[in-house]
């Protein structure tokens, strides 16, 4: 019995990797053959970022079982630290792919540090309390970045916190050759965009690899045991704090890498992008895809990122239609009645006659 379930989950993992690789190859061939619209081509990197965000949040929400409403905060930390790294290493590392990799590592590292800082006090809480505190964390990050002034010149990195609100980038005292990287509330502008679809694909694969392996490891089973019954798990000697931190920090680091890729895909970036709405959007991907279901998260993130663009023909009703589609999809995937309908329609489509007359 045990062997069978193990096999089943491995098969599911392989299917997930396979689906991602297949999607990458197909899209790459289509894009290079010029069959992909510009609209979709432009969304490839953001989709990879959101997929990676959804998979990493699924680690916290689905596997660790804690509701986090501040995932965009880690994305923000990763994005801005990644942008700082990439901009200041422009002359030191001329090769764009290498610089991108370094920026993503810096993004992941900084987000991991933020994860430890926030995780230490927060993971003592449970359920709703934890959700509220992570929400506050996301807001704090947004406000901090709004106060942050960063510049780079031949002397190195210049940092200032504009807490009183009357400093500008001129107060950093940059030399003539210096570049302003983050201008407080105005965010960063003039970023050299070095993100590529291949980097996005690699990020998704690494994220999947880390999350899926963590889940099937000894630590992963401990994490899930804590999720299912913390008291029972602790009574057999599992270290609650250690395993919680492990999942939480891993999730934060992966989100940071995704943020760095996102930040380097657009020429301008403001902290307001990573607000509460973005955290909720990512949570929607996870819930729609199914808690703990990585393939579901991937599909949901990709579909819901493309959907608003695909609905452009609805003009002003676009976001209304998006909301209605979201409600219908949630019902279709989770309402038992509608699921029965869906299954019946699928059966009819595949040529099998439904067992009994509808209704």
């Amino acid at each position, binding site marked *: 019995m045990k062997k069978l379930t193990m096999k089943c989950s491995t098969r599911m993992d392989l299917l997930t990797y396979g689906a991602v690789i297949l999607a990458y190859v197909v899209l790459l061939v289509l894009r290079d053959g010029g069959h992909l619209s510009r609209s979709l081509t432009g969304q490839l990197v953001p989709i990879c970022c959101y997929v990676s965000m959804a998979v990493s949040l699924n680690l916290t929400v689905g596997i660790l079982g804690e509701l986090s409403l501040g995932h965009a905060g880690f994305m923000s930390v990763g994005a801005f630290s990644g942008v700082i790294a990439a901009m200041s290493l422009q002359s030191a590392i001329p090769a764009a792919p290498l610089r991108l990799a370094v920026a993503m590592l810096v993004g992941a590292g900084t987000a991991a540090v933020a994860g430890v800082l926030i995780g230490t006090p927060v993971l003592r809480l449970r359920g709703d309390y934890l959700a509220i505190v992570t929400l506050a964390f996301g807001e704090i990050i947004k406000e901090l970045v709004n106060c942050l002034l960063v510049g780079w010149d031949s002397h190195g990195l210049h940092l200032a916190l504009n807490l009183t609100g009357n400093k500008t980038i001129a107060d950093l005292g940059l030399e003539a050759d210096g570049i302003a990287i983050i201008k407080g509330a105005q965010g960063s502008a003039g970023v050299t965009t070095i993100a590529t679809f291949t980097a996005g694909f690699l990020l998704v694969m690494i994220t999947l690899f880390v999350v899926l392996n963590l889940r099937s490891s000894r630590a992963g089973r401990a994490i899930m045991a804590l999720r299912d019954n913390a008291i029972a798990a602790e009574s057999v000697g599992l270290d609650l704090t250690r395993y919680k931190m492990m999942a939480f920090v891993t999730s934060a680091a992966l989100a940071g890498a995704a943020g760095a890729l996102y930040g380097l895909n657009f020429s301008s970036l403001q902290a307001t992008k990573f607000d509460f709405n973005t955290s909720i959007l990512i949570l929607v991907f996870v819930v729609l895809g199914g808690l703990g279901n990585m393939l579901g998260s991937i599909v949901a993130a990709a579909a819901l990122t493309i959907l608003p663009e695909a609905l452009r023909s609805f*003009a002003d009703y676009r976001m209304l239609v998006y909301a209605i589609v979201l409600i219908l999809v949630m019902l279709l995937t989770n309402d038992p009645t509608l699921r029965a309908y869906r299954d019946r329609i699928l059966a009819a489509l595949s040529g099998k006659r439904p067992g009994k007359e509808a209704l």
Partner: protein
Amino acid sequence: MKKKKFFALVTAMAMVLGLAACGSSDTPAADEGGTSDESSTVTAFKIGTLGPLTGGTAIYGQAVANGAKIAVDEINAAGGDIQFEIQSEDDTNDPEASVNAYNTLMDDGMQMLVGPTTTGPAQAVSAVAYTDRTFMLTPSASSTDVIDGKDNVFQVCFTDPNQGTAAADYMAENMAGAKVAVIYQNDSAYSQGIRDTFVAEAGVQGLEVVWEGTFTKDTATDFSVQLTAAQAAGADTLFLPFYYQEASLVLNQADAMGYAPTFFGVDGMDGILTMEGFDTSLAEGVMLLTPFSADAEDERTQTFVQTYQDQFGEIPNQFAADAYDAVYILKAALEASGCTADMSAAEICEKLVEVMPTLSVDGLTGSGMTWDASGAVSKAPMAVVIENGVYVLP
């Protein structure tokens, strides 16, 4: 039984949705048909506008789309060699959505871009347009970051530094001895940008800034703290470099607490008179910098305001006028460069970049507008004061 009811409900919902979709897509389709019929003899240039048609800043994006449409209709009706086809996309004031919308426009064959409307999205799109070599003329994105280092990006509005400096100069000249308090939104690139240059220029001009206060997008509902502090600091002039929604609240709350300084806004204040549910008597005496006044006496402005009112039922703001001018600027540039509609976006771009610094265009928002190679426009900002619900020159 219950099941049946539920299914019926869902089906009904889907049908309503379908109908709504038909309703919305019918109108633009009919419009496009009309345009292409007229221009069937001469091939039309395809231009696109980008801006927030939905969301909190929708009034700007809609004004841009409407203003550009009026200009296109006029040009097409006049039937010259240059005809336009126009398409407007929604970017919800988000850089990511704006880049997506830009790509959609490019998919649909756009040759020149009039947009984006707001600064954040414009920064992101200008980088893409620069790489693609698509000619971009933004009606209203005023940050210098939009045009910096991009030879093919031009502005119709004046830049943020220009506005902050002009506001300080105006105050120093006409309101000598004023004690100024500044309230600004420190998570908005636009607001922060104007505040920075205003304070710098105020220092140069010897204008006294007695107090500065900030707010963010999330705290933009209650200004009593800032107002009380400004009053306590003895400010008799309040500089408000942000958009009109927040400004309307400031005016309301200042009125409620009986504080009546001189309010001074910039171009974001434009639109306050047409805001739904706002008591325009509160805006009496408010001063603002704007390049456009709907009450100007000249015939072109009058015709434009009349057409706008007939078609869209409201008085056009500065954004509409900027977009209207943008289309005429494109027309002038196309004429000067001798481009034809069958050229690719990149070819048109190279030719337009060459002729832009040689142009001088008279528009609704300024006469004799000229551009330098950086993309910034040179025209004079104008201060107006609101009296009896209309803008008048002080």
